[in-house]
């Protein structure tokens, strides 16, 4: 009886809660009830994650194992499945809970269509909660096959959400995203088969204990890398992301860019730097870094050339993902710190970057969604005088852009500063050049939009019916976007909130 009320029951509740929310929202008939239940569930989820973090941080010091573990079904690691949480996954869970709350409130108003014949919320809410459940389950999972099932849930739920609109562009993008997702999951499953053949266990912790650099382990790591690079859309394999994120409804593209793409990066970091660290060669780490740098440059160029606002923001996601992959070369070139799990200055810098980018990107997508909802289109060329019509959304867009570029008050600046520090400390100064160039190019494509939005070129183009805002936008939707943008500024000021969160699990 004792363990029921001890705090590690919170781990399975983090997965069970969205599942119950999904079932409820499937069965309930009235849209209003579904929305209110969803908001309530999002609040409860935030509270659970808050208590979990408090418990982790104060019990962090006396922690002998790196992880807090919960063995489902009571069978223990090799036979049963364990839920494990350490600093890095705690940070990601906190980010998921915060974003879920804001986006759920936004979606409540975004999909509220009293007169519409087609009630999209009946399909949106269950898929939304199944996606959140998949994300939570992935960050908590300590078993490689269980990670495959969570990857599938996230993939299928995300595809169904992208295809929610029913327009031809959305459906085509969803189909491409699905094919790429299935391909990535199959490569990952083949790697799971190889690892099980070689080591006989499915548990991450046990695997990291007995992994050694054999041919099979390299093959498995290569397959995991190709599979997850497909799903996280790093440059050579990024062709599906811009259209999928560009044509999805606003809250969906916000959570896709802010979280879903990061789940496969989290797994890559987990496998390369923690579980299969012995098999991770320096050249491999360097190659990932080079791909990241290429992503920064290529994504920024494409963002500059994009004609539609949402497409531009999606390409900027491709670019910002490149920053995450700088973690691999910067992790810790010296041998000894490798096996100490996922920790170190580079990890906290990238963890901070993930939070900053998630808030900024979600704010940008919500602002773009608001602009699209009001103007009926999001072609950048026709957004003259946006400042006059939608000052709050444009202000949100500017703040989020500032965080992407890395201007001082924002969290983006701090994360880039930390990354630069790590680059200088580990004497790999060339990454610093890439980081600064990325910031410069981000500035170019953000200011391009702001430039058009502020100057209304000529009055005639102004009054042309095509360019006038057409429908009313509930103010709370712009407030949600504004809240997220403000979050990046608030995080910019008190950085230690996140930094000591990342190092929870491993000040052993």
């Amino acid at each position, binding site marked *: 009886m004792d363990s029921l009320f001890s705090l590690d029951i919170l781990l399975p509740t983090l997965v069970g809660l969205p599942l119950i929310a999904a079932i409820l929202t499937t069965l309930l008939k009235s849209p209003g009830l579904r929305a209110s239940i969803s908001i309530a569930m999002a609040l409860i989820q935030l509270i659970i994650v808050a208590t979990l973090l408090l418990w982790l941080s104060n019990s962090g010091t006396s922690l002998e194992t790196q992880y807090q573990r919960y063995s489902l079904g009571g069978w223990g690691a090799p036979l049963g499945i364990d839920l494990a949480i350490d600093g890095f996954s705690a940070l990601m869970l906190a980010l998921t809970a915060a974003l879920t709350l804001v986006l759920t409130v936004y979606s409540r108003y975004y999909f509220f269509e009293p007169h519409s014949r087609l009630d999209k919320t009946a399909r949106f809410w269950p898929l939304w909660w199944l996606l959140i459940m998949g994300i939570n389950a992935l960050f908590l999972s300590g078993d490689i096959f269980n990670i495959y099932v969570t990857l599938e849930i996230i993939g299928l739920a995300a595809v169904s959400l992208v295809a929610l609109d029913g327009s031809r562009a959305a459906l085509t993008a969803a189909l491409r995203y*699905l094919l790429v997702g*299935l391909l990535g999951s199959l490569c990952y499953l083949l790697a799971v*088969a190889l690892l099980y053949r070689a080591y006989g266990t499915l548990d991450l912790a046990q695997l990291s204990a007995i992994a050694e650099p054999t041919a099979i382990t390299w093959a498995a790591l290569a397959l995991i890398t190709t599979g997850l690079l497909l799903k996280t859309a790093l440059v050579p394999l990024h062709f599906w992301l811009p259209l999928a994120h560009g044509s999805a409804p606003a809250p969906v593209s916000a959570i896709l860019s802010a979280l879903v793409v990061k789940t496969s990066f989290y797994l890559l970091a987990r496998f390369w730097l923690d579980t299969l660290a012995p098999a991770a060669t320096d050249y491999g780490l360097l190659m990932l870094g080079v791909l990241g740098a290429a992503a920064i440059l290529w994504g920024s160029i494409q963002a500059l050339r994009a004609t539609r606002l949402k497409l531009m923001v999606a390409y900027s996601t491709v670019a910002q993902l490149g920053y995450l992959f700088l973690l691999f070369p910067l992790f810790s070139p010296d041998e000894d710190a490798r096996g100490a799990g996922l920790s170190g200055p580079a990890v906290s810098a990238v963890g901070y970057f993930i939070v900053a980018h998630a808030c900024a990107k979600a704010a940008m997508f919500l602002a773009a969604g608001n602009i699209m909802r009001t103007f009926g289109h999001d072609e950048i060329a026709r957004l003259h005088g946006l400042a006059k019509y939608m000052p709050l959304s444009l202000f949100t867009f500017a703040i989020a852009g500032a965080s992407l570029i890395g201007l001082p008050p924002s969290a983006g600046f701090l994360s880039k500063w930390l990354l630069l520090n790590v680059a200088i400390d580990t004497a790999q100064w060339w990454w610093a050049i890439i980081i600064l160039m990325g910031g410069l190019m981000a500035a170019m494509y953000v200011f391009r939009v702001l430039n058009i939005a502020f100057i209304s070129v000529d009055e005639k183009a102004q009054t042309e019916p095509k360019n006038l805002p057409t429908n009313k936008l509930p103010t709370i939707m712009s407030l949600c976007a504004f809240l997220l943008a403000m979050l990046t500024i608030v995080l910019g000021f008190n950085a230690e909130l996140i930094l000591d969160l990342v190092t929870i699990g491993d000040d052993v």
Partner: protein
Amino acid sequence: MTQESLYIIASIGLFGIGLYGVIVAPHILRKILAINIMSVGVFMLLVVSASNMNSTPDPVLHAMVLTGIVVAIAGTALALLLAVKIHTLSRDSDKDDH
């Protein structure tokens, strides 16, 4: 050439054929077929790893393959649904044009 190595060749062969099919086949149904062939290949490798135990085959791998089969058909069903919807939309827009 024990039984195990035969089926390993078959499993990686199926995976390769499926991967080639996904990349090369133009028609959308063929791509979905190819993905199914790839998943069958991966499952075969899993079952081979389970079967050469001394006495009884490894039930954990069999459970994994069972879950994999059901997940594969879920993915296929969703892909087919999207394909039919896109076709209906494209057919209707063709109808509107002429």
